[in-house]
């Protein structure tokens, strides 16, 4: 036994111990308080938004019957008995799905490019000027405030029907969402390399490029891949407002009660999203293991 641990005076030990216990107790009671507050807020907001569980239970039958209905062909047989008839429009749908993925891809690429640049203006530790930082942050907030569909609708009115408004809508929303995430990543970097580069007399873009970018790149790539998957889902409903992709066929099938078509298109979307989820997950893990080259 070492003599060291018992060398402390009993009175002093008691004081330290009491201090520690009080701190822990304070922390625990605060956790309970926060928990209670969350439950209370949930109840209050449910009441004020008129979320009535009764309505939900009363109508759940309608929902399940609709789900049941979309898996039945015109002739009354379940869809899986005749796959060829179920997926009669496969060729069109696949090309629309490809368009959907491309809308998501281009939108993500454009949005990410904007987000990378703006994130460094928005990061407290790197921003060249506080005013520039404030303006950038407000702009990013604006970009992510409205759902993509709202932007899409506005762009459809401005540019007409087609994939272009969808791409722009996704790009703007992604720029806002990723810009915020990226700037938070940038705010947590080690500033020593940044100082090292700045001390050589390098200009601001060079300081960011060499001091900060290599540190944030793996995280940026990871968030971007995640965003791509989200954007494929977002792009699949762009067609609802005429902004391209599979959504236009889906909304038509829903409106015109082509029940089997609804399920066929939904299945295609789910498979596509799952596939992209799987691939991006793979890539992200790879990056996590080896780190991205800078």
């Amino acid at each position: 036994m070492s003599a060291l641990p018992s060398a402390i005076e009993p009175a002093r030990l008691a004081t330290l111990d009491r201090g520690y216990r009080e701190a822990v107790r304070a922390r625990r009671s605060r956790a309970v308080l926060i928990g209670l507050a969350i439950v209370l807020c949930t109840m209050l907001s449910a009441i004020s938004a008129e979320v009535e569980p009764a309505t939900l239970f009363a109508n759940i039958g309608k929902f399940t019957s609709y789900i049941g209905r979309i898996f039945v062909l015109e002739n009354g047989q379940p869809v899986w008995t005749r796959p060829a008839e179920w997926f009669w429009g496969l060729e069109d749908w696949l090309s629309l799905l490809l368009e959907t993925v491309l809308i998501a891809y281009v939108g993500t690429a454009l949005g990410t490019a904007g987000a990378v640049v703006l994130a460094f203006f928005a990061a407290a530790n790197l921003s060249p000027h506080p005013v520039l930082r404030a303006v950038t942050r407000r702009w990013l907030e604006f970009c992510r405030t409205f759902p993509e569909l709202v932007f899409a609708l506005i762009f459809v009115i401005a540019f007409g029907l087609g994939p272009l408004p969808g791409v722009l809508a996704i790009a703007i929303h992604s720029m806002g969402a990723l810009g915020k995430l990226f700037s938070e990543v940038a705010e947590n970097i080690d500033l020593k390399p940044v100082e090292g580069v700045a001390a050589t007399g390098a200009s601001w873009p060079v300081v960011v490029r060499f001091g900060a970018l290599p540190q944030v790149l793996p995280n940026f790539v990871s968030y971007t891949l995640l965003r791509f998957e989200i954007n494929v889902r977002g792009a699949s409903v762009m067609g609802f407002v005429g902004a391209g992709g599979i959504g236009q066929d889906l909304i038509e099938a829903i409106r015109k009660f082509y029940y089997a078509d609804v399920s066929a298109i939904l299945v295609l979307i789910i498979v596509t999203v799952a596939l992209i989820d799987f691939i991006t997950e793979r890539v992200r893990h790879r990056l996590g293991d080896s780190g991205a080259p800078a």
Partner: protein
Amino acid sequence: MLRLQQVTKRFGDKKAVDGVSAVIPKGQLVGVIGRSGAGKSTLLRMVNRLETVTEGRITCGQINVGTLSGRHLRAWRARCAMIFQQFNLVGRLDVLTNVLIGRSFGVSTGRSLLKLWTDADRTRALAALDRFDMAHLAAQRADTLSGGQQQRVAIARALVQEPDIILADEPVASLDPRNTRLVMDALQAINRELGITVVCNLHSLDLAREYCDRLLGLAAGRLVLDEAPNALSNARARELYGLEAADVVGEPETLPVAAYAMPLGSLSVAPSGVPAQ
């Protein structure tokens, strides 16, 4: 010639550096010594303008360092290279790129961003690395190197800036004795062979005595000592370092018991003072 006139740095109410005046002629190897918190780092960082100057003037020829901004400030930083205790390399980049970053003031921003270094710059960087036997590691990622190797890369980066002054903030504080020698020898060689002024914060008085032409001593931000290393007696050094003297000054002597009483007393924990997280 670097001239400090009544240089002061305030953080809030606290004076980290307090009215320091000194003239450092070209080609000198100056050691700045003093206990932890004395203001050594702050003083050096003001010269490179990583910190602003609160009061007083730092001048070099016609240049008033305190008021520089934009391109002039970057030109000044390129002229006075900085070396850090923690090396401050970009760990994820390879060694040669880290050294080439030292050229970035002279290269257009566009070319730097795309790493379009000229052959001349690449040659300079390799030559600087080779000077410290590091050229064979040029392609390796900086964070895979040992501390001593990283510091030599940092010195190579400083060297390709072709600076007039090198400011070294405790360059050997994270290194073992062998690497300490290598790094201090490198700094001394640069000073002697290239005539570059070196201002070096050092915690170890033995090193300061061995390598420096002149010692500046700081205590609580004030300049309390400015003399040749051999003129500095152990007694004065002990005074400067106070409680840290035993770590710093060569031959250990027993300190008065009273000296230990203070830090122990200040450790007492009042229950109300325990921070609730």
